[in-house]
């Protein structure tokens, strides 16, 4: 580990800290404020869209109505994307003449993009036409992020708004929230930062692939396409689906240190900002900062562990005359080095992004354990756009509940009592996740059609399986990519895991919002457990870690942990 490396990590964290408040403030104005920003430019677009959709901010929905709108909209998204992929050879903007996408792959991809996972069983350059990339996939980057944001807002409203005159507190309207998230947040930021990225060398054109003759006379095909517009929303919306197979390690997606810094920042910005937004909604910004604090501690620990692991020479190469002072460079780019690769890996898996600038499969066992653990904790280390906030709020409720049990008082959060019904929904949320991951992983690990896709033998093979299903269920989309998931079994099971991990977890969240919206707010008394200080932050961190450890420790031991100890003793697979 070098001073330079630490400086880069620290710089990123400080910039993130600096943008959290202004961005959080901006989002508060957009979603909760009496008046929205940018009355001249963006507000007319919003009004126009709302009118065309026949939606109105005054049209408040109950949690069930909200859930139904979300599910219908997502179902349409899956169907449309499936259709475009199957028909791409009949549609325009296909200069490479690519054929229709196979049914199982098209299902997997349609689900993957709708659920904000952006798992890619295919390689972008050789499978998807420009039209498919743009009209089939790109818009999901906006709406799946918007949908996640909407669910987080509903939960935050349920927790913070007060019921009036016997009627439950208002939760908002799905279409209004979705439109606002796109018009005020995702689109303008994408345009501004997209141009910055393009200025640094990310391509944005509609040309056919360029055939060149290299300096030594060998031919090379330089891929082209509108990568820039997808690149920025890929990070900003924590989507992660790359334009190219190699994702953000591809020089056309991430050409230098500056773009890399910016991409990491874009991944973390909205999830971090939302904690401040939540604090404002709760009427006390310290409530938000205490959540931010828990996320920040987990984030820095993750970066530290990954950076330390990747800096050390790979024991499997011991004895060879090799200068490994730059760290484990297999699967990493020279322009990022180990520090920025560890940083990106931690950011992309702590959120639900899943873009990669280095190949997690080739990390050392302990280095690879960090992204895997981040996913297994439920992506609450800043988390996805929206998904991070509602994920951590579920853990907040759990922490408050545990604290309540310890002191023997009815647990309450922000003055609202937490009772049996809410806790059942919380437990549903907490249990669905490992249930999907562990069942599918077990199935894959014992079936010949499951293990035949592995690229690596021994415990690392198990890590690949675990990572794949965790990434799918957590809607992340990054991979231990040696695994070939473009088979009937993997495409189908992972598609189901993504659907379950998205909607079986969103519905309990919306339900909790609905239950909490009905509760009265009791003033805080001397016996109230404070949820806005370092004590609570510490408790929250332990609950996140304990729940994750209790569920996944055995599986992780059989994968990366055993691999680490065997590799340290020179055992190869």
């Amino acid at each position: 580990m070098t001073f330079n490396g630490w400086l880069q990590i620290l710089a990123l964290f400080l910039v993130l800290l600096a943008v959290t408040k202004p961005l959080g403030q901006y989002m508060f104005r957009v979603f909760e404020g009496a008046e929205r920003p940018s009355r001249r430019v963006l507000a007319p677009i919003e009004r126009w869209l709302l009118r065309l959709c026949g939606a109105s901010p005054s049209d408040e929905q109950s949690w069930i109505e909200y859930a139904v709108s979300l599910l219908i909209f997502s179902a349409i998204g899956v169907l449309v994307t499936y259709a475009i992929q199957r028909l791409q050879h009949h549609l325009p903007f296909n200069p490479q003449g690519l054929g229709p996408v196979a049914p199982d792959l098209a299902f997997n991809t349609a689900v993957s993009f709708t659920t904000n996972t952006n798992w890619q069983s295919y390689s972008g350059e050789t499978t998807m036409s420009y039209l498919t990339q743009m009209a089939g996939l790109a818009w999901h980057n906006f709406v799946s992020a918007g949908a996640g944001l909407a669910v987080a807002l509903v939960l935050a409203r349920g927790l913070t708004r007060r019921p009036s005159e016997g009627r439950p507190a208002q939760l908002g309207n799905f279409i209004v929230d979705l439109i606002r998230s796109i018009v005020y947040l995702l689109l303008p930021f994408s345009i501004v930062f997209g141009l910055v990225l393009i200025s640094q060398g990310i391509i944005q054109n509609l040309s056919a692939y360029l055939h060149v003759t290299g300096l030594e006379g060998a031919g090379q095909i330089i891929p082209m396409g509108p990568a820039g517009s997808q690149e920025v929303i890929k990070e900003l919306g924590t989507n992660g689906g790359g334009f190219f197979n190699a994702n953000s390690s591809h020089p056309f997606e991430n050409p230098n240190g500056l773009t890399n810094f910016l991409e990491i920042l874009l991944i973390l910005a909205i999830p971090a900002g939302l904690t401040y937004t939540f604090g404002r909604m709760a009427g006390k910004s310290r409530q938000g900062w205490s959540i931010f604090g828990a996320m920040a501690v987990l984030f820095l620990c993750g970066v530290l562990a990954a950076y330390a692991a990747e800096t050390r020479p790979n024991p499997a190469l011991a004895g060879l005359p090799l200068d490994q002072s730059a760290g484990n460079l297999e699967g990493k780019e020279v322009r990022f080095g180990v520090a920025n690769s560890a940083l990106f890996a931690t950011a992309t898996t702590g959120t639900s992004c899943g873009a990669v600038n280095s190949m997690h499969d080739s990390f050392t066992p302990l280095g690879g354990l960090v992204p895997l653990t981040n996913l297994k904790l439920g992506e609450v280390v800043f988390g996805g756009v929206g998904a991070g906030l509602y994920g951590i709020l579920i853990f907040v409720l759990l922490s408050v509940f545990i604290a309540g049990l310890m002191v023997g008082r009815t647990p309450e959060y922000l003055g609202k009592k937490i009772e049996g019904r809410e806790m059942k929904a919380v437990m549903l949320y907490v249990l669905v996740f490992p249930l999907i991951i562990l069942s599918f992983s077990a199935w894959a690990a014992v079936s010949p059609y499951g293990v035949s896709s592995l690229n690596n033998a021994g415990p690392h093979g198990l890590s690949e399986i675990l990572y794949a299903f965790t990434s799918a269920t957590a809607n992340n989309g990054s991979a231990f990519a040696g695994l070939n998931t473009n088979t009937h079994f993997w495409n189908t099971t992972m598609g189901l895991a993504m659907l379950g991990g998205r909607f079986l977890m969103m519905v309990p969240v919306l339900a909790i919002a609905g239950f909490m919206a009905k509760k009265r707010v009791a003033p805080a008394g001397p016996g109230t457990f404070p949820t806005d200080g370092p004590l609570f932050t510490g408790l929250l961190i332990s609950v996140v870690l304990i729940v994750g450890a209790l569920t996944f420790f055995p599986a992780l031991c059989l994968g990366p942990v055993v691999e680490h100890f065997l590799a340290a003793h020179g055992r190869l697979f």
Partner: protein
Amino acid sequence: MKYLSKSLVLLGLVVGIVCIAYPLVLWAIGQTVFPEQANGSILYGPDGKPVGSRLIAQPFTKDEYFQPRPSAVSYAAEASGPSNLGSSNYALRARVASMLGPIVKYQSGPKVGQPVAPDIDLWFQKDQYQGSPHLVAQWADAHNSLAQAWVKADASHGKYVDGWAAAHPNETAQWSKDNPGTDKPVAADFAVIFFDDFSKTYPGQFPAAVEHRTADGKTVSAIEPVREGTDIQSNFFDMWRQEHADADLQDVPGDMVMASGSGLDPHITLKNALFQLDRVAAAWAKIANRKEADTRKEVEEVLLQNATAPFGGLVGEKMVNVLEVNLELRRRYGGA
């Protein structure tokens, strides 16, 4: 129903905005303000034709050019990708060792600065490993997957093993008896028994491609037993190293033998470039018919001028862009 129609309208509007308007806005501004970057940062050769992208590695094999990092996709820019080998995967060590064998040099001792490769050949020809004969057979027995990988590596290898299998029905029949699970064995299945037999028939030799010139002046390549060469140095360097653990060798920069994530990493570390400097300078000196010491100094200058660190040199390890440097050398010294 109410939601369904609203959702469809919303979907149509969103697609219109974010899939058509948004990329086109970025496209229009990008093409106007940053045309070079938006179109792939293409570099042009001395003849004015495009030779590649500044951001995309291309293969270099000739001595006079700096070589990029290894690529798991053979620098196929339209199909980027990594090796995805786990750090404890045997294939990773094998690949690294095989790249090291032909390039490693002595760090000290009487042969300081000289390549190890000739010594590997001599050692290999003795056909002894850990005190037992039949080195190639030992290698294949200990590393089944490497032996199989050799058979699959090239069509000509498979053909050679097929030819051997046809001539050795007894051995293949025995193999089928021992492995009842495999109905139709292919060439790779016979890898181990093939090398066992090869090692006994041709002690101290290894099958490799040899080029012949036919009567009509064409060059044809055939697999034949050989006693020396890169195939031997690559495949057996790791075993040589086991028996010569105390040989003091120069450390090769890691990025020279570790494949990048994209397979298209346009940079190498400055360390890596300096490691290649002697070879590159000697080759240009020969082409341009100049003194080697002068050329070396000039090429080193080119390297140092082109060396950058991420963030405008503020932080990170120094690196050079391979294509830019090679292009500059080509402009400076000419050559084919």
